């Protein structure tokens, strides 16, 4: 492992962690709404949330590029209001990773919330807890194992993301290049040794994260 490789691993882990942190608040809210509420258009929202799982990642990246370019709806707003550029920057990496990981987190969190006994939420409310307090003191703690599994899954997905990232953020060494993009570049350049080294790192990270997530999902809860 060269210093450049370590930097690459650190950058990838950092981007995956940041994107996971970014997706957790909206993901939690969305998952809870899908698990606990019925409203007109719910099916549409479910479909839209699942789209990144179904669409080719490059297509998702293209949609993001259109949205976040300086002539795009969100990109123009961010540039004119905050002077922030997303396309071909580390911010683009975070956006792409977060969006691609969101469906996995929402699905996992939704199942976790659906598994919480509503009775506990009701009794908490009857004891004076506001809906927000019920959410943070009852729903989230009781769903914590599934939520943690969702976080790990989303993080693992972010580590391996390629298609959307390369379209939105490009493949710029030291600026937007992640492990997956570096592996691709090494293969393209015929540097199989380097590609294999990076592949092994990716494999170890993915194996540990997916295994932990699976273990958390299956482990019986010993609490009463």
């Amino acid at each position, binding site marked *: 492992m060269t210093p450049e490789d370590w930097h690459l691993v650190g950058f990838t882990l950092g981007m995956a962690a940041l994107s996971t942190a970014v997706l957790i608040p909206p993901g939690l809210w969305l998952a809870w709404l899908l698990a606990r509420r019925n409203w007109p258009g719910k099916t549409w929202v479910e479909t839209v949330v699942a789209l990144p799982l179904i669409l080719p990642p490059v297509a998702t990246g293209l949609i993001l590029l259109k949205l976040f370019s300086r002539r795009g709806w969100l990109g123009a707003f961010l540039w004119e209001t905050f002077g922030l550029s997303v396309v071909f920057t580390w911010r683009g990496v975070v956006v792409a990773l977060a969006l691609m990981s969101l469906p996995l987190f929402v699905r996992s969190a939704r199942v976790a919330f659906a598994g919480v006994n509503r009775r506990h939420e009701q009794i908490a*409310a009857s004891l*004076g807890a506001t809906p927000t307090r019920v959410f943070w003191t009852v729903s989230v703690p009781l769903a914590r194992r599934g939520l943690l599994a969702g976080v790990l899954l989303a993080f693992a997905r972010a580590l391996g993301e390629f298609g959307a990232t390369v379209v939105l953020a490009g493949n710029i060494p030291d600026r937007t290049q992640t492990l997956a993009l570096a592996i691709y570049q090494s293969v393209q350049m015929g540097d199989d040794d380097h590609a294999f080294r990076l592949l092994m790192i990716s494999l170890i990270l993915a194996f540990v994260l997916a295994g932990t997530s699976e273990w958390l999902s299956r482990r019986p809860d010993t609490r009463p």
Partner: protein
Amino acid sequence: MALPPPGYQTMSLHLQKLIARLPEFSLELDVELDRPMTGLFGPSGAGKTTLLETIAGLRSPDAGRIVFDQQILADIAAGLALPPHLRRIGYVPQDVALFPHLPVRQNLLYGWHARGGRGRPSHWDETIEMMELSDLVDRPLTGLSGGERQRVALGRAILSSARLWLLDEPLASLDHPVRRRLLSRLRNWVDRLDVTAIYVSHDPGEIVDWCDDVLVIETGRLVGRGIPGFTASLLQDKSKLHSGSQDRR
């Protein structure tokens, strides 16, 4: 039976033309409860739990009004329904529903903190002693017996600074002597804290001894009201008098 002190003004609970439809029948009541502790008596499936959950706001009535202490909790015609957390109710459900992720102490303090209290309420020590919880306070929830869980649930409601206690067979899992001892203290607490309580029990003896009033409901309808009439009906059928307590021994 404890009587309110002179000049004591009990907060009244009005159930005005209240209708809650159930799969088998409709719960229909039009009563005013104006005594500190009212017993709710009736066979299983009569609608007692439905009534408590409707008052607590955990299920919506189909018609009618619920007014407690001059505050409208629900008025279906007007489209009003106060959210459960604003009703100042301490509900002890039959299934106890302690929070499994919290230890006993945090369960006990949940309602107190949820209603803005800090630290411990002033009546913490007395409540712990009254409900015989001293040995349980610092324990996790794991391993508590059914009776211990009920005492924690009751303590949780008492400590929640509620004005209206809805107690759905809160002591049913306890031995008869313990139950009567705790019920006596509970009754004393109702008077001291100036709260209104509805106490569901299958033991008519408990209701006669500790409640000021009683509603007897069957298949959702009020079929009897008041301690004198209730006692008279029990005397006519003496087998009922202690049937509940004997069942649980």
